[in-house]
């Protein structure tokens, strides 16, 4: 993919997203968006469908685009199982979500720290949550921004540098947050969510078609890479590792809504969100399923590369795994290497 094509794609996407962000700002709302509740929660009157798309876009970030892609590549179908159990945890939002929303509306909470501080009648709890959020959201945000940098660098073979990608992502994130608070964030999230599902559907479809269709893909896998269709498969997904990955992530989905500002805001911003639970579930389901299909078809990496990928993931170095994969590609297929 050429650099100019990437830049044009980014420019067009940004134009559309900025248009949506500005339109969201102009949407009439009771009380306007100048209040704290208006800026952070859209006056608790965000559309349920938009809330659902935003929640799912918030959940699937660079972690999905970089980390889980490599995990599927290295460990086979076990990655699908991991993600299915992960998204099953979203069901708990149906239990806790209405409570969050109800108490949020009743007591006027704007942030998760307010809710937890009030619940435990302790200012110290609220302070601890605020400080913990600030501290731990720094590496969390850094990984997301780094993911954008790595992806842009990777797809352009280094023509767009890592630093340029990170700076671009940072500016965009600040701009979307600034222009209309939660309204612009959620509406641009929705655009991103729709684009991701459309793109992943197209990629999976095109890859499978180029390999001769669904039947031919699985026939090839069954004969040449049978382990990729079972667990523990190539070895990455031992039962203990599978448990270690899935148990925290099962509970991560619902409880991040209580402790992490972005999903909390997406959740309590919805006035009435009958789809806020199962709609992200549909996308949670479609996206890993399609991506697993696509990635299972790419079983041609040399074994040393797969081993290195597995080791990287096992130690949680997901972003590094993308680099290792690229390096392996370079070494074994003679692609041009570039300096970060």
């Amino acid at each position, binding site marked *: 993919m050429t650099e100019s094509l990437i830049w044009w794609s980014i420019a067009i996407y940004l134009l559309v997203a900025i248009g949506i962000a500005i339109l969201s700002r102009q949407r009439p709302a009771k009380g306007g968006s100048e209040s704290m509740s208006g800026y952070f929660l859209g006056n608790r009157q965000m559309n349920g469908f938009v809330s659902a798309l935003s929640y799912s876009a918030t959940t699937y970030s660079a972690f999905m685009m970089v980390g889980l892609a490599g995990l599927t590549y290295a460990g086979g*179908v*076990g990655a*699908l*199982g991991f993600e*299915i*159990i992960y*998204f*099953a945890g*979203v*069901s*708990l939002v*149906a*239990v806790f979500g*209405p*409570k969050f*929303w*109800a108490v949020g509306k009743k007591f006027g909470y704007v942030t998760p720290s307010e809710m937890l501080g009030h619940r435990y009648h302790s200012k110290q709890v609220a302070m601890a949550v605020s400080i913990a959020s600030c501290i731990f959201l720094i590496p969390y945000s850094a990984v997301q921004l780094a993911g954008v940098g790595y992806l842009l660098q990777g797809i352009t073979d280094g023509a767009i540098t890592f630093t340029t990608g990170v700076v671009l992502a940072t500016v965009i994130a600040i701009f979307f947050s600034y222009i209309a608070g939660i309204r612009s964030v959620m509406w641009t999230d929705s655009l991103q969510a729709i684009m991701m599902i459309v793109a992943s559907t197209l990629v999976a479809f095109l890859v499978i078609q180029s390999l001769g269709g*669904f039947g031919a893909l*699985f026939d090839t*896998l*069954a004969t040449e890479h*049978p*382990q*990729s*269709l*079972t*667990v*523990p498969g190539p070895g990455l997904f031992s*039962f203990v590792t*599978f*448990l270690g990955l*899935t148990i925290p992530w*099962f509970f991560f989905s619902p409880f991040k809504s209580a402790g992490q500002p972005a999903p909390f805001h997406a959740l309590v911003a919805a006035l*009435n*969100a*009958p*789809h*806020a*639970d*199962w709609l992200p*579930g*549909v996308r949670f*389901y479609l996206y890993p*399923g399609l991506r*697993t299909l696509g990635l299972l078809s790419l079983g041609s990496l040399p074994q040393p590369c797969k081993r290195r990928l597995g080791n990287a993931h096992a130690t949680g170095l997901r972003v590094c795994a993308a680099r290792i994969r690229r390096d392996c590609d370079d070494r074994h297929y003679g692609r041009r290497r570039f300096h970060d």
Partner: protein
Amino acid sequence: MKRSKWIWLVWAVVLLSYLVPYTLLSDVSRWYGSFLFWAVAGVAIIALNVFITTDFKEHSDD
């Protein structure tokens, strides 16, 4: 069925998602093995979520 009952079925699907692929399907290296099982489990979870959230509005103050 109340929301609390449906959620037990979610737990059951999750439990099966651990047990079946690692036992019954561990040697089935075809599309109708673990791939299909987890795909169907995903559909089941979505269906259960539809049931759970059917009365979302009425019970929003639970």
